[in-house]
């Protein structure tokens, strides 16, 4: 079920939280996603999918916040998948080395499938 309390759309599928980024990922919207992700992890989520299907533009502050989210998730032992990222944004992620720390999926469905396979492989 969708949760709009933090102005960030999200829902959970089992132990995976799916968080939706807005059309412009900057400091403000990045921090909202970060807060939502932390909340989901605190609530027992074992994996995060951040969906960029609405995102047209990202800036470097937004990207640095995403890296912070990846750090937090790693510390919690959670996996992170980015889904539906447009080509230009992928280029930026590559330029700044983000793609070394995160899996990219074509869409949310592929992200959930990827996580499900990983989870089984890890014996969760």
């Amino acid at each position, binding site marked *: 079920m969708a949760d709009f309390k933090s102005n960030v759309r999200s829902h959970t599928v089992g132990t995976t939280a799916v968080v939706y980024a807005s059309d412009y990922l900057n400091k403000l919207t990045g921090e909202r996603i970060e807060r939502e992700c932390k909340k989901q992890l605190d609530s027992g989520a074992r994996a995060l999918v951040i969906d960029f299907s609405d995102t047209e*533009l990202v800036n*470097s502050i937004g990207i640095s916040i995403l890296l912070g989210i990846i750090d937090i998730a790693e510390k919690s032992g959670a996996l992170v998948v980015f889904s539906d990222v447009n080509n230009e944004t992928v280029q930026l992620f590559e330029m700044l080395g983000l793609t070394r720390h995160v899996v990219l999926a074509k869409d949310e469905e592929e992200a959930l499938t990827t996580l499900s396979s990983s989870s089984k492989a890890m014996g969760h």
Partner: protein
Amino acid sequence: MSPRPQQERRILGRVKRAEFVGRDAELERILSLASHANSARAGGGLLILLAPLAGVSELMRQAYDQLFNAQSEAVPIYFSLPASDTTAVSAAIEFLNAFLAQYIAFRRNEPSLAQASLTMNDLVQLAPAADLDWIEQLVSAHNKQRFSSDERELVRFCLNAPRRVPSGNPQPYILFDAVKLANYDNEQVPFAGELIKALAGSPPFVLAGLRREIIREVEQAGIDYGTHEKVRLEPLAEAEARQLVASVARREGVAVSDECRDLLAQQFEGSPFLISAMLLAAREKHLALNSYFDCERLYVDELLGGRLNHYFTSVLENVAPEPIVRSALIRLLSESLRAGQRTASFAAWTRRLNLEAADVESILRSLHVQEIVNWDGETVDTQRGSGAWRDFVRSRFRLDALREPRALVVADLMSAALQRAPQTVARHYRRSASLPLRDVLQAFNYQRVPKVLFDYAAFAADYKGAPTEEIAARLEIDPQAMKLPQVFHTAHGVAFSAELKQFDEESCVVAHAFAGTSYTNENEVVWLTAKIDSKLEADADAVADWCNRLENLAQRSGFSRVQLWLIANEGFSVEASEKLRERGAYASSRMQFELLSAQLSEGLNKSTAAANNEYVFILPMGADNELLAAATAEQIARRLNFRPEAINQIKTAIVEACINASEHSLSPDQKIYQRFRVEDDKLVITISSRGILPASVEAREGRTHGKDAGVLEQRRGWGLKLIETLMDEVEFERVDEGTSLRMVKYLR
């Protein structure tokens, strides 16, 4: 016979308008100010700040004649302070007399009255009916005032006489030639102060005088210097000086060869006074000036006994009225003109002149005003004054102090002048033909220019032999660019090193500059540039000699960061180029230098032409306004047919640049200034803001250490990294505050 047209009447002018050489702009300034004479917004006056010997009286006389002949509302009044043998009181009374005579002459449209010798009573008799009342009252008041014992009050009365013209009558426009103002320094009455206050009280006016003196006196009189317009009058430029020689010679009927014309223009450094003095002397002595010998013989005669002698003697007598002091002063000046004794301390002058400090101060102030010395309160620099002045001082010392036979002094002076004449003219010809090295360096102001213009070897390999048009076209698209520094001071090398005296003054220039975006010690760099005189490619030995010479200069001057740049007409041999590369020196041929010079000149014109293809937006910081900037850039980029991928790259870069600009927490106006300039093959975007420099930029400039910054700070530096990756050219431009980021994206 028809009457002479009014426009042509010569009244105070010594020459016809057509014979008056140069100073057109200055004349126009004086004439245009006259229109304010009867307006309510009279504003300030015009200060003509004169270099010594630059000459101003004919300029003012010409202005007078034009205003008189125009017979408009402004009544011109020209007055020149008498040179000597007069007091402040008599000068003031003379002024009053001239004022009334010229006012009445104008009102009656009778030029002859302007210079007539008339008593006050005569003037009252001649006053037109419309002016009779106030002139009668003025003369009557003056008759009472002149018998009072208060001299200062009398001077003030006379100088303020123009204010007594009733407001309904045409107002006077005073043209005051105060070049001799220094002669009134020792008066009991503070003449300069009274004069300046009187003029300032009845604008508009023109006050001409020696620049150092006028500035000082205006400030001392408590008058706001900034409220007055200024015209700086320098000696004539070379072409005008030659024209003046020809014009005066023609008028005075003196035959002058072209060679002598050039010599006189050069030897007297464009001084109208000295040039005219020489030609008048030639006329009086019925001499033709057809050879250097003719010129120098006349020069020596004039210097030791003619007009030049009279002028320089009067300067000296005014500076030091006491013969004993004057004699000591000549000795001191003569000795200090010798090589290696350029400067001396105030204390040394006090000891040598054996005078009280106040008296030495007075002498130095007078010499400083005449620009015979430079005196900053402590150090006295004596390497000033015209060449003729220096000859005068040396010869006076030998005649008066050393008591050498006059014949010997004349012979030596003549010999030296004859030896110097061809050198003087040769120096002029060389200067005319030489590269304007100093001008080009002065134009350095962070422009981007093709790097190859400073690398002769690369230029020779890629461009040598190609037609000039082709070279210029190819340079336009040369991708290897370098950014010039901002030069803030240039001087000839000889000002730093006496060793360079053996070369032509123009052959070496020292330019202090800043590279980078901020004025810091680290960014300061001194360009040491030299032109190598060589008909062929300069060889390795010549290059090594110049590099050593310049490096020695840098070491002695304490320059920590230098850039050598050598220029040779035909470029450099392979070995020389190798040596230049080893020493990190730039090298250019004459052609490269000319191309560079052309690019710098073009830059000025381009900026105007570019305005038509330029879009400027100002956005407030914050509220995701960078998206508006990105959207604007998108629209412009679409017009230029950029590919969608490139458009997204531009948008992202602009967003990052705006974020950088917004990070100025102390930005006073909280605005982001954006300039989009469309050029043939590229879009140039400049994002700037006011305020303090962001830490990320400082780190880039090496002012903070990136390794000490935390992870977050490092990540915050990603913006610049992204911009550099996404755009084709990125650089910070020099701005006084805040930052200005220039980004270029090429159409591919």
